[in-house]
């Protein structure tokens, strides 16, 4: 007899949180959002991206948020499936890999859950999601190269330091410059990958300096590699930045990199905006109010900063990290 009561009690105890939880959800009136993202440890960019979503999707702003982080696509798919089972209202996805999402997105649609993609596109029919708010890496490259051409240098002898080959950022940022090399408007002194490694970027620039070949532009596909390249210039006594012999270009807009711009040590830094939360927040509020979205694909507004015009307030607004 005692045992039976004990069993019942244990079962009741085990189930009670679910009952309480289920009851609470209905009364809260919050919009339930499930976010599938890559972990903040992936990069400084991702850390800023995660912080941005944490800042916007809060209870005070009317959201009940659950977040799942993974670098692995299959784990992300499982998490998305779990969010569907949990019955969230919206799922926001930054996919680890572009393929394999069709069935999960179809399930979500059938369950009446609305999906937003952010940061990265994935291969799925546009009807399966409401909208995608993404960075356009090719556009970042175009903006940077357009800026470089506008400098009207007498010659363009470019050292091109690439990121990890095959990554989104590398492909996009390389394409624009490759077009100039092919057209003959700029001369490729060296095009080499440093796989995002600062110290390797320094070695690549060192090897060009040692060869004695003249160059006047360094196009590094992220801030860290630009910093490595500048270290090599400093050691060889080559001036850089505003009024320097070599034009230095970087990407990502870390705060420390923008400070180098402000100090005139570098010339250009291209933004890769991790700030998509506010745009998605606006879209969700629009849908909740019964409105319709203007477009399926929103490309984050990404600027390029010029050392000649950058201000401290730009650094405070757009800089990543500290």
């Amino acid at each position: 007899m005692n045992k039976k009561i004990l069993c019942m009690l244990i079962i009741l105890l085990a189930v009670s949180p679910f009952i309480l939880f289920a009851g609470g959800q209905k009364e809260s009136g919050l919009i339930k959002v499930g976010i599938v993202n890559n972990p903040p440890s992936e990069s400084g960019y991702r850390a800023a991206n995660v912080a941005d979503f944490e800042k916007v999707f809060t209870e005070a702003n009317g959201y009940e948020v659950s977040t799942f982080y993974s670098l692995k696509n299959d784990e992300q798919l499982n998490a998305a499936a779990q969010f569907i089972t949990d019955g969230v209202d919206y799922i926001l996805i930054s996919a680890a890999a572009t393929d394999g999402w069709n069935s999960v997105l179809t399930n979500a649609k059938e369950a009446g859950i609305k999906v937003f993609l952010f940061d990265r596109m994935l291969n799925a029919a546009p009807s399966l999601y409401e909208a995608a708010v993404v960075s356009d890496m090719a556009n970042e490259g175009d903006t940077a190269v357009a800026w470089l051409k506008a400098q009207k240098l007498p010659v363009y002898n470019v050292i091109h330091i690439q990121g990890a080959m095959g990554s989104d950022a590398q492909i996009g940022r390389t394409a624009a410059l490759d077009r100039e090399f092919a057209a003959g408007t700029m001369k490729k002194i060296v095009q080499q990958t440093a796989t995002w490694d600062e110290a390797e970027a320094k070695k690549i620039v060192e090897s060009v300096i040692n060869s004695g070949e003249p160059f006047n532009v360094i196009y590094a596909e992220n801030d860290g590699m630009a910093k490595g390249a500048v270290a090599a210039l400093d050691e060889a006594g080559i001036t850089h930045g505003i009024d320097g012999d070599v034009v230095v270009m970087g990407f990502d807009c870390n705060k420390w990199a923008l400070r180098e711009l402000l100090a005139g040590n570098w010339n250009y830094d291209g933004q890769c905006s991790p700030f998509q939360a506010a745009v998605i927040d606006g879209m969700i509020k629009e849908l909740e109010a019964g409105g319709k979205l203007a477009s399926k694909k929103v490309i984050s507004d990404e600027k390029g900063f010029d050392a000649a015009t950058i201000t401290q307030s730009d650094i405070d607004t757009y800089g990543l990290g500290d």
Partner: protein
Amino acid sequence: MVNSTTLVKGLRKLSQSQLAIPLFALFLVIVFNVFRDISFFSISVKTNNFGNTVLSGNLISILNGASELAILAIGMTLVTSATKGQDISVGAAAAIAGSVFVKVLRANEITMPVILLALLTACIVAILFALFNGMLVARFDIQPMIASLIVFTAGRPIAYWINGGATPNVDSPLLSYIGSFIPGIPIPSPILIVIAFGILITLALRFTNLGLYIQSVGINERAARLNGINPVLMKLLVFMILGVCVTIAGSINVCRIGLINHETILIDIEMDAILAVAIGGNALSGGKFKLAGSVIGAYIIQALTITLYAMKVSSTAVKAYKAIVIIVIVVLGSPVVQKWVLQIRDRLFKKSMKLVEYK
């Protein structure tokens, strides 16, 4: 005549030495570059942007760039010798050590005592992680590669956590003294650090029984124990030395650029370090070792990279070329090929020796 006999004997001695293969490989890289472009070796004197007179050239770049690898190769050789296995977590551990180094620097005004304090703290943390690997290997008899897989996987996320995200910067002329040049000395500081560390460790191994003890544990653990050597202690000791190496390598790398990126700092260096040990003619199955071999191995790997950069090999193909050369070197150093070489040499030299005797 006397001269030629000593030459023959000298050559014979060299070809039997463990250093034959790494020296031969280094010789090949040099000869290749002599024929490719002799100006590869030119060294010039320049004034850097901080007003110091400095040396510059590919040779300096190679010696300078290989510093972290050379130091890690020394530690890896000792671990290989005593434990008959390799620690694959050195890159990740260097990320942790570098992050601790940066953390302490950023919390204080950067002065010389603070830098020393930062180094010391980083060293303690790195040794703790090394000891964790060491305990698994020495006490629980786990294969070193498996044991270090834990820190290999978790190391960079731990470094991320220490950094608090992003890529923290440290800026100070004092740090550039470590990572680039000390005013008045035209040789890059990392090269000097490698020389100093190499001398220290050689002295330590030669003037104590440490080198002998480490080798005997690697050759026959039971015999070593019966002779009163504590194998567990020796294994822990080599891991502690590796911890020190990791700290130096991580800190040099941070000082070079003035920032730490937990994802990219010394990435894939563990494979290069193991390779340096192998190219150096050391058996990866432990036992006898020659530190000089591993250090030469490190410089060969760096010379190869710089040569490929100088040749402007396309970015997608660099690793493939590197792999081809390394396969050749490793096959040349394999016991089978060495046996052939010895047989051919004996045939050739017996004749010439006889000729010498007749005269």
